[in-house]
């Protein structure tokens, strides 16, 4: 019994001493390194850190927008809120945007989708809508303003035109492509969401000159302008989507017809609510 206990105690001591030596050495070295590194820097930089706190924060806030490429590497969820995530959709030059605008004025080609399949952009859709909002809220009322002032009449600008047209155009270019995206997914003919935004955004460009021409106070002329613009816009969207939707089966015609009529409806709404300048 005694000899057995003695043997076990020796084994334990041996087992304990063998791993302790290598563990203690790196531990000591780590402590030494950490102590040497932390204490002098903390002591020396304590005042400096306290002093330069605000500038460092300011520098951080500055560098974040500029170096947006660093943030996407962190995680996918936060990537949605960085600027770099949307740069591919604005990777266009002036000549590209002008070319696409010109293509939108020739609806019967039907090649816009093919040309923009590689790099659809959001610059055109956004700024075409913004221009439409400004034109809708200003051009017509400007003529009325001049006429009323020359006749010394009382005239009040309807500031709600800005908010109303903003809601109409941003809403249309956002909601309609989203619904179409869902419908096409349902019919197993998926299209890129950004590509749909791009298509609908450029399809609205034809309404900018139409709104400018609406300053002519003839109602017949306005209906003609709205009709031509609506037809061009609707044909542009329908022909560009037809080639893509044909693979969706027999219901492609219903979808294309719906798209066509919706675009015409937009033209009618514009005619009824925005082409209402009266001198």
């Amino acid at each position: 019994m005694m000899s057995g206990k003695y043997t076990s105690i020796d084994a334990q001591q041996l087992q304990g001493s063998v791993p302790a030596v290598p563990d203690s050495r790196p531990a000591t070295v780590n402590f030494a390194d950490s102590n040497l590194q932390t204490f002098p820097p903390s002591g020396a930089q304590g005042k400096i850190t306290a002093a330069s706190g605000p500038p460092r924060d300011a520098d951080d806030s500055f560098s974040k927008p500029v170096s947006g490429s660093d943030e996407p590497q962190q995680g996918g969820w936060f990537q949605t809120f960085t600027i770099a995530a949307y740069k591919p959709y604005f990777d266009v030059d002036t000549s590209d945007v002008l070319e696409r605008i010109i293509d939108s004025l020739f609806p019967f080609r039907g090649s816009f989708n093919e040309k923009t399949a590689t790099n659809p952009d959001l610059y055109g859709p956004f700024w075409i809508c913004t221009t439409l909002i400004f034109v809708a809220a200003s051009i017509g009322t400007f003529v009325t303003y001049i006429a009323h002032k020359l006749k010394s009449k009382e005239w009040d600008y309807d500031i709600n035109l800005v908010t109303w047209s903003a809601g109409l155009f941003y809403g249309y270019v956002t909601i309609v492509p989203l619904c179409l995206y869902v419908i096409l997914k349902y019919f197993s003919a998926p299209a890129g969401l950004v590509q749909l935004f791009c298509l609908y955004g450029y399809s609205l460009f034809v309404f900018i000159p139409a709104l400018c021409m609406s300053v002519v106070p003839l109602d017949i002329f306005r209906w003609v302008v709205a009709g031509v613009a609506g037809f061009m816009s609707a044909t542009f969207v329908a022909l560009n989507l037809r080639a893509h939707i044909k693979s969706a089966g027999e219901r492609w015609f219903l979808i294309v017809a719906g798209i066509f009529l919706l675009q015409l409806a937009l033209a009618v709404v514009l005619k009824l609510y925005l082409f209402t300048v009266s001198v």
Partner: protein
Amino acid sequence: MSHSDTIPLHPSSQSDIDEIENLINASVHQSVPSARPPSPPRASIPVSVSVSTAPSPFISSNLPPPPPLPKSSVSAVTPSPPPPRPGIATSGFGPAPNTLTEPVWDTVKRDLSRIVSNLKLVVFPNPYREDPGKALRDWDLWGPFFFIVFLGLTLSWSASVKKSEVFAVAFALLAAGAVILTLNVLLLGGHIIFFQSLSLLGYCLFPLDVGALICMLKDNVIVKVVVVCVTLAWSSWAAYPFMSSAVSPRRKALALYPVFLMYVSVGFLIIAID
């Protein structure tokens, strides 16, 4: 074990020594602890402050001379850290308390002078127009905020109906517009500092502010159109070099068009709101 024991003892003893020294200095110099934390940020400011307030240190120096003599003798008695002594002494004797205790009017005056100098750099001709880094190095957001609110208030006062809605639309157009224009340049691959761009676009509103003020006083249509056209051209001219140099030449028009559109919108609001 012995190494680990000795290594942390040194920093702890050093920290204890530092604390003891701080206590001694605090008890001896009551003003010293208040001077220490703000002294580094003031290091850059006191140069101009000392130049501007040359007579004030002379007046203040008359009072402190008797107290520092025994303080210096006490500090001489404690010989341990020579480097922190001159630092503390220089910061203590320097213009730090003057900057800390300056009147609010002096601070406001300094901010206003900075706004005026930035305005001159942005809106008026100067050799640094092409270089945003030099033209608006010391940017701020007070100027843009003032110009946006001023324009909103001017349009709101000019309006005979729906004053609050006019102010809301004008303020939203200007504030959100500046942010969107800056994001537009960043998304086009431009290299600009976010808040510097906001600051510059805000300063470019100054001509339109002047135009809005003139249009509020004058009710003639032709005068209004002429004034707004002139101030619109001026604002566009002021913003052009900054925006054009921020992006590559192939995308210059894409960056400049939204800026022009925003200023045209503001100009239209100035004419139409009556």
